[in-house]
C-alpha cells in the first residue's frame, strides 16, 4: 500500500437487498484493497429511488458521526475503480483536498458547470452529477444531516448546493459501472448508455482544464502542495 500503509478508510457501500449482482460487483471492486474498511449498508427499496439514496447517505453520515470518523467514503454499488486509481494517489488527494478546506471530494463525476483547477490533480467544481464514490470530511457531516429535503431530493444536487467547496480528482479514480438500469434516476434508467458518455465527456472537459493549468502554472500564483 505504498506510503499509506496502515491507513484504513471507513467506506460505506449502499446496496439494495434485492441487488445481489451489484453487491458481487462492488465487493469485487474492493477485494484486495485493505485501505478501505467496508461497511455495507444493505437496504430496502424506497418508492422514490433518489429519496432512498439520500436517506441512506444520511444514515451513513449519522453512523460516521457517532463513530467519530474524521473522513469517510460513501459509495454506491455501481462504483468502479479506474486504471488511474492507486492507493497513494488517492490518499494524497484526500490530504491535499482537506488542506484546501474541501467538504466533498469526488473520485469521478458525470457532469459539472464550472471548474477551477486548484492543483495538478484537483479541481474545484461549482456543481456535480453522480455520487458513486465521494469522500466526505467531518466538518461537513452535520450540514448534511441538517439539510432540509423533500421527495424531489437528489443527492448530487443537494450536496452541490449546500457546499461551496467541492472538488473532483483528476484523472478520475472512479466511474459508474453501467448495469443497464438505474435504481436512482429514471433518466438513467431510460438511457442507460448515457452514463458512460457523461463520464467520458466530463473527463474530457476536465482534461482541458488540467492541461491548461499545467501549461500556464509557471505563470500562476498557486503553490501546489507536495506530499
Amino acid at each position, binding site marked *: 500500500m505504498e506510503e499509506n500503509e496502515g491507513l484504513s478508510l471507513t467506506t460505506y457501500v449502499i446496496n439494495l437487498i434485492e441487488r445481489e449482482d451489484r453487491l458481487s460487483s462492488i465487493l469485487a471492486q474492493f477485494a484486495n484493497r485493505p485501505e478501505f474498511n467496508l461497511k455495507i449498508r444493505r437496504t430496502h427499496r424506497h418508492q422514490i429511488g433518489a429519496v432512498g439514496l439520500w436517506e441512506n447517505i444520511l444514515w451513513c453520515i449519522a453512523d460516521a458521526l457517532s463513530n467519530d470518523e474524521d473522513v469517510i467514503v460513501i459509495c454506491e454499488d455501481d462504483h468502479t475503480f479506474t486504471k488511474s486509481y492507486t492507493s497513494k494517489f488517492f490518499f494524497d488527494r484526500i490530504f491535499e483536498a482537506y488542506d484546501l478546506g474541501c467538504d466533498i471530494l469526488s473520485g469521478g463525476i458525470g457532469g459539472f458547470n464550472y471548474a*477551477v483547477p486548484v492543483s495538478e490533480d484537483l479541481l474545484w467544481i461549482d456543481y456535480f452529477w453522480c455520487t458513486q464514490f465521494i469522500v466526505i470530511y467531518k466538518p461537513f457531516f452535520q450540514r448534511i444531516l441538517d439539510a432540509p429535503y423533500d421527495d424531489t431530493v437528489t443527492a448530487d444536487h443537494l450536496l452541490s448546493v449546500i457546499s461551496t467547496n467541492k472538488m473532483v480528482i483528476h484523472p478520475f479514480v472512479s466511474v459508474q459501472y453501467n448495469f443497464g438500469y438505474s435504481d436512482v434516476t429514471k433518466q438513467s434508467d431510460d438511457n442507460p448508455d448515457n452514463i458512460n458518455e457523461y463520464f467520458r465527456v466530463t473527463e474530457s472537459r476536465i482534461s482541458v482544464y488540467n492541461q491548461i493549468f499545467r501549461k500556464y502554472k509557471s505563470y*500562476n500564483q*498557486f503553490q501546489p502542495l507536495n506530499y
Partner: protein
Amino acid sequence: MSKIRYCSLEIPLEELNGNLRCPSMLLSDSQHFDLHKINIRTSDTPESKIWTHLQDEINSLPKDSQYFIFSAPGALLTEDYDNTRLFRYLNISSQFDPEILLGGAGWFSAAIEIRNSLFWVEHFRGAHFVVIFRNMYDKILRTSFVDGDTIDLKLSYLAERKFLLFPFVASQSADALIEGEFHMHQGYFDSNAPVKVAVSSYAASTGRLAVLSKVRQFFITN
C-alpha cells in the same frame, strides 16, 4: 509606441438608442489609436460581408503590424475600459504567444484565470472587441466563409490561444444581438440544447467569470 489600428464596424449612432460609448466616440481623438471606422447597417449586413471587411483590413495593415483591434457591429466600451489597462494586458498576454485577446465575451466554454484578470478561454462568442495578433493574419486570409458561419465562432475555432480580459472592456449594444442558435460540438454541455447568445449573455458571462475569479483568489490566499 506606434498607434494601434482599431477597425470598428459601426452601426449608425441613431440606432444605438443614445448610448454613446461606442468605440469611435471614445477613441477617435485618442493619440493611441488609428481608428478605421466602417459604418454599416447591422440588420442587412451578412456575416460573410463582415468577414470580407476583416480580410480587407488585414490586407491594408502595415507590413510590420503585430496586432490590431477588430470590433464587430454594435460594439460598446464598458466603464472598465481604459487605455492603460488595455496596454498593460496586451503586454502581459504577449508572453503567452496569443492569437486573440478578447475585451469581452457573450459566451465561453471553459475558462481559466492564468493571471489576475486574464483568462485563457476555450471557445467564445461575441467579437465586439477582439485583438487579433499577427499569427492569425494568414489564417484569416486563407479561410473562406460559408453559409452558417459566424465571425466569432470562426475566429474561435481558427485560434488556438485565446485570452479574455476580465472585467470586460467591451460589450454589445442591444440593437446588435447575436442572432440565432447554434450547437457546440464535443459535448461542452451535458445536454445538446442549443445555446442562444444575446446581449444579456455578456452579463451572464460576467457573473460566471466573477465566480471563477473569486474561487481562484480564495485558494491563492488560503
